[in-house]
């Protein structure tokens, strides 16, 4: 019952604009037969997701974004972003930003770490909104279906890094580059500015994290995120599909080169974003 589309429809029917409802109902969506796709995404929950996130997006974090034209309108694509802020608000805001600013609307499929699907309620609700667990097979089938994936190549070390290392990219894993080459998908680097200051952590604890099924639990300085302003920048796509053949995915040097280009792309967007912003809250 907590995951009934009827409840989602009722809530969005009461509180969501017609434009937003129409956006969710017109998304590119492969119905597996009962209104859900194979991974559990359901348009009613995409609309509910917008209802839940819009307050954060519009009023609390007052998101400013640019470069949407760099997101291909169709076909498989990987968004690769920096990760920050101790809780994954960055992913949620990118999800809504892409939904709102692509025409026709595209639902980003965030690739979450393995522990996320095992979180009660959250794991299921995220899946209804499009999230998938971080396995190679899931990513492969989504790319083959022409979906838009969101990957944080830094993984957990990116989101829980100490405040003193803010906006310093951690080591980029290479999985996203290999996937892009193998499935001929362009990679769009995404720079997220603002998240680093939202919730500085006093310390992080693996032991506490284990209690909640998390790899690590950051203990934040403030109980709730600060109302920083988020700036999202989408960079020029790296045309992996034009420069490499799928067999290059087995060449570690080619994969490392692509990952390095993505990291440089994200880093450049971060620097530009930091230079352009007038203040943490402005």
């Amino acid at each position: 019952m907590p995951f009934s589309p009827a409840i989602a429809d009722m809530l969005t029917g009461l509180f969501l604009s017609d434009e937003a409802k129409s956006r969710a109902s017109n998304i590119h969506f492969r119905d597996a037969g009962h209104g859900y796709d194979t991974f559990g995404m359901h348009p009613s929950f995409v609309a509910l997701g917008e209802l839940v996130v819009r307050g954060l997006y519009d009023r609390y974090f007052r998101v400013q974004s640019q470069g949407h034209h760099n997101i291909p309108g169709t076909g498989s694509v990987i968004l690769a972003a920096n990760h920050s802020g101790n809780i994954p608000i960055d992913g949620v805001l990118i999800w809504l930003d892409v939904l709102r600013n692509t025409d026709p609307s595209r639902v980003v499929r965030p690739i979450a770490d393995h522990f996320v699907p095992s979180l009660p309620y959250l794991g299921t609700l995220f899946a209804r909104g499009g999230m998938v667990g971080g396995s190679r097979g899931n990513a492969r089938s989504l790319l083959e279906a022409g979906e838009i994936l969101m990957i944080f190549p830094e993984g957990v070390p990116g989101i829980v890094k100490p405040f003193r290392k803010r906006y310093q990219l951690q080591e980029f894993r290479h999985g996203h580059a290999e996937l892009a080459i193998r499935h001929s998908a362009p990679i769009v680097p995404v720079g997220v500015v603002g998240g680093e200051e939202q919730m500085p952590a006093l310390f992080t604890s693996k032991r506490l994290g284990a209690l909640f099924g998390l790899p690590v639990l950051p203990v934040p300085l403030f109980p709730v995120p600060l109302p920083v302003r988020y700036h999202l920048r989408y960079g020029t796509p790296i045309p992996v599909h034009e420069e490499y053949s799928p067999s290059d995915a087995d060449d570690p040097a080619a994969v490392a080169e692509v990952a390095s280009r993505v990291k440089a792309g994200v880093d450049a967007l971060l620097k530009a974003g930091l230079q352009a912003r007038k203040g943490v809250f402005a």
Partner: protein
Amino acid sequence: MSGLRVLVTGCCAPIGEHLVRRLLDDSRVECILAVTGNPVDTFPMSPSTRLSVSRVNLSSNRAVHRLLFEQAKAQKIGVVVHTAMHHSATDEGPKVHAYNVDSVRHLMALCERHPTIKRFVLRSAAAVYQVQRDLPVLIAEDHPLNMAGHAPQWVRDRIQADLSACVRMGMSPLHITVLRMAEVLAPGTGSQLFDYLESRVCLQPAGFDPMINVMSIQDAVGALSDAIGAMEQGVFNIPGADTLPVSLVIERWGRIGIPALGAILSPLYRLRRRLTGHDFRYGMNRRSFIYSGVLDGSRARDVLGYVPSHPIEWPVADASAVG
């Protein structure tokens, strides 16, 4: 493709019985030898020039030998379809193992020496696959198997039977096809999910609602029939036409789903098993109630031409489709 002569085991169960009916309607099939563990006169179809029925204990090597080298040889059987598998998850022990696993090994060994049998089709199950949080939702044929040491015999037997067939591929003169089928939501098929849905109230682990795939008997029989007619060998996932969350399965089956603390479900369902004699074991299916796992049928589609086309006839209509 014409002139198929087929031996079908497990004809006392619904899938075997429906397969025989389907083969009787297939003009390519010249002759069917239906093997059942029950008395022949309880078989619902009368023997004819195209259909003969034989009662054989598949655990008995001698009886199987006689079946193959007397009756099957006389009828020039070319294809063996093995659908027999002990259904109950509560029955365990060497006899069950002999029926589930040793019979497959022995049957295949005999088929390899047989003068007319050239093809062996094994009905396996999606239950052989591991379902866990770091594995793909979409299950391809190379997905890890559930090799956990603590897996119950019901699962281990299915894996062993499956692998017994797989290891002979390429080494055997037989063309071997293993069909790993989604759960058939029908009585008498050994479906744990069907047994779970026998209760008016179905308990689910709170906070989880994974995607599952279920199939109808018609699709299961269609896949077996496609495999009989095809010459390719290999392992194929056979999904059904219905992919949906567990909560919707419960709803469409006309049951009431109640979320409950995951830790109490195993003892509660154990109690239910003891009190009512039901077969469903929550512990055995726990991960399928938490993590999604859906068979990827693209290989079966491309190679065998199998496409699921018979959705389950749900007792309750789709509420979202009304109006």
